[in-house]
């Protein structure tokens, strides 16, 4: 966060409503929280807001304060594993990181042993945190996640952040997070969720219910570079989060393929899989491996002085390791191997990482899960993207930064990546918007964020909206969206009727005597969603109408909005009826239709509808993609 907020123009000096922001309570569903972090210092905070009805699970090693006003843990099977600590204390680090990204206070001169130096801060630093520990070293059970929703909704949180998800596709009401976020929505609470790290393949997204906000991960303009210097003076740029400083010392270099451990041969040992490399021969040396290891996976080269990993895997999925490490691409990798083969005593050094300017930012991380929505493909998911690559945020000093057992380092701030890191940025942006518009519904907050997002480059992200949704969050812009696409519980119930849910189920769900009649059964194209997605067959001509309503939240004077279609590909014929909307008062709601015709020529076609009154540009992404 020492760069991420500034990168999106959300500086320390942005206008705030401190009295309202300090009343906002963010529920963080994660691995717990570490209250001793400087990010959670409660100096200057008043007592918890009067609406707070939650609890703090106090123990000998845990207590809350005026910043962390609530903390609970959930372990329905009652069995605690050796690596876990009972109660809400964070024994993983992930929950401390995400909570501080949403609502951590300002901490100057924060860094990870010098890396990423700057002011670490949450997006809503005055807001309060309620931590719900649902994740343990063996995962997060549906039973515990639902228990946390059951409590958080009743406790009085304003917004929920969930950087967690499943690994298989489940229908909305067979999924604990979709169920919990539906009931949160009923009570006016928006749930923002990470879409998962299973990209870049399509349809890998988890957390795609229409009533939640689904967040993809993108880069900022800062990257960490880790140079490798060979004995012959050549230098190669690699990536990793490397806080070790060898001070340029040249160390003997060995290729893992040259030192297999029986019964394995070089074709296996070169990958540095566990027990395939002769550990005696790596001792004190820098070892070159032909694969990217996970931090805990470097046990294969235990005793090595460093590791150079070379392969073609994406360079945006960086890690820190318990030893000096750098990940280089196949070209420098080949040159390093050729140097080893042609030199009698090859040596190398791995430099400490340095923060560098990343050109062409932002782009969606390769690991970020992609749409389309596996259950309702005609609702665009992800909704939006936020910074999720190499984010520096708070970390428990009781947990190693790499997560590897053999890592003895301890830090107060750690650099990690994932859609988990993107999600709390968006949660904070939503909370920030809510601080200006406390009565806005979850759908209105979603709409404000989606329609004001910074457009992202389709060229740089060929998966288009299926990777980044509407684009990159723009918290400042989202405060003044001009128009919002609102939706109530009734709208979602109507949508569910159209999805085939029975009247009986929906009456249980919403308790509002809904009945799925012809009048009350909405197709997916009628749900008042702030984006437009159409799944089609590339060989078929398209003809689809979307019906939407927008509410004027911009100007109290008569205002006229003109529809502008931004359609760079020209393969789609998009018309809007009426093409001008005249609002006479604030809160007025007007309807319109978008008709899409034509035929797509490639996998994903992008366009956008912009309602423009000369002051606001209310932009909704339009994407048409090949269902196959």
């Amino acid at each position: 966060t020492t760069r991420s907020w500034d990168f999106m123009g959300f500086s320390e000096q942005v206008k705030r409503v401190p009295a309202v922001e300090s009343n906002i309570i963010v529920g963080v569903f994660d691995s717990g929280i570490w209250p001793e972090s400087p990010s959670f210092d409660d100096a200057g905070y008043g007592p918890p807001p009067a609406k707070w009805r939650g609890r703090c699970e106090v123990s000998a090693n845990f207590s809350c304060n005026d910043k962390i006003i609530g903390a609970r843990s959930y372990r329905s099977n009652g069995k605690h594993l050796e690596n876990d600590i009972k109660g809400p204390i964070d024994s993983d680090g992930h929950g401390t990181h995400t909570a501080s990204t949403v609502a951590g206070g300002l901490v100057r001169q924060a860094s990870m042993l010098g890396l990423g130096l700057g002011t670490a801060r949450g997006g809503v630093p005055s807001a309060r945190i309620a931590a719900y520990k649902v994740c343990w070293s063996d995962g997060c059970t549906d039973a515990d996640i639902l228990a946390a929703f059951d409590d958080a909704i009743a406790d009085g949180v304003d917004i929920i952040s969930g950087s967690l998800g499943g690994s298989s596709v489940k229908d909305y009401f067979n999924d604990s997070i979709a169920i919990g976020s539906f009931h949160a929505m009923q009570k006016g609470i928006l749930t923002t969720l990470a879409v998962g790290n299973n990209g870049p393949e399509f349809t890998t997204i988890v957390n795609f219910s229409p009533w939640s906000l689904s967040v993809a991960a993108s880069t900022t303009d800062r990257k960490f570079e880790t140079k490798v210097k060979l004995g012959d003076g050549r230098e190669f740029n690699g990536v990793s989060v490397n806080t070790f400083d060898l001070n340029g010392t040249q160390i003997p270099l060995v290729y893992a393929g040259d030192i297999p451990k029986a019964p394995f041969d070089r074709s296996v040992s070169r990958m540095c899989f566990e027990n395939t490399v002769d550990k005696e021969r790596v001792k004190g040396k820098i070892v070159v491996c032909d694969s990217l290891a996970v931090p805990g996976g470097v046990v294969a080269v235990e005793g090595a002085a460093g590791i150079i990993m070379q392969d073609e895997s994406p360079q945006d999925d960086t890690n820190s390791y318990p030893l000096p490490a750098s990940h280089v691409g196949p070209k420098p990798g080949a040159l390093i191997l050729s140097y080893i083969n042609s030199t009698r005593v090859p040596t190398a050094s791995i430099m400490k990482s340095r923060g560098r300017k990343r050109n062409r930012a932002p782009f969606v991380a390769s690991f970020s899960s992609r749409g389309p929505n596996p259950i309702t493909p005609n609702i665009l998911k992800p909704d939006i993207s936020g910074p999720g690559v190499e984010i520096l945020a708070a970390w428990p000093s009781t947990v190693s930064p790499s997560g590897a057992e053999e890592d003895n380092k301890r830090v107060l701030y750690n650099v990690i990546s994932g859609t988990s890191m993107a999600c709390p940025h968006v949660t904070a942006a939503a909370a920030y918007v809510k601080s200006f518009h406390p009565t806005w519904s979850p759908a209105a907050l979603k709409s404000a964020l989606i329609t004001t997002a910074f457009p992202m480059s389709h060229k740089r992200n060929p998966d288009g909206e299926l990777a980044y949704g509407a684009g990159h969050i723009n918290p400042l812009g989202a405060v003044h969206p001009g128009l919002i696409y609102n939706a109530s519980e009734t709208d979602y119930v109507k949508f569910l009727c159209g999805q085939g849910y029975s009247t009986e189920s929906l009456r249980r769900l919403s308790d509002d005597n809904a009945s799925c009649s012809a009048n009350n059964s909405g197709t997916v194209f009628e749900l008042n969603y702030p984006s437009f997605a159409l799944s089609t067959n590339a060989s078929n001509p398209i003809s689809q109408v979307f019906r939407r309503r927008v509410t004027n939240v911009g100007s109290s004077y008569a205002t006229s909005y003109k529809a502008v279609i931004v359609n760079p590909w020209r393969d789609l014929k998009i018309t809007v009826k009426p093409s001008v909307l005249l609002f006479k008062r604030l809160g007025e709601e007007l309807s319109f239709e978008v008709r899409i015709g034509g035929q797509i020529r490639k996998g994903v076609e992008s366009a956008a509808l912009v309602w423009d009154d000369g002051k606001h540009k209310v932009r909704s992404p339009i994407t048409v993609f090949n269902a196959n």
Partner: protein
Amino acid sequence: EDPQKTYIVYMGSHPKGKVSTSSHHIRFLTETIGSNFAPRSLIHSYKRSFNGFVAKLTEAEAKKVSEMEGVISVFPNGKKQLH
């Protein structure tokens, strides 16, 4: 032969003005499954914000419960991960 597994039984919103309690859920399970149902098989009741519970059930019992009036879904207590 049909071992018990942990299931989530989801029953939607609380009926207006009423809050479901563990004893409601035990009664519901006893009525559905019969006297074989051991109350200790009910692991947790959701009662503050929505209606449902967690229970140890056999697959056959889970199927029976899923067919009962008032039940929206029954699904195994799966695991999710941090992202």
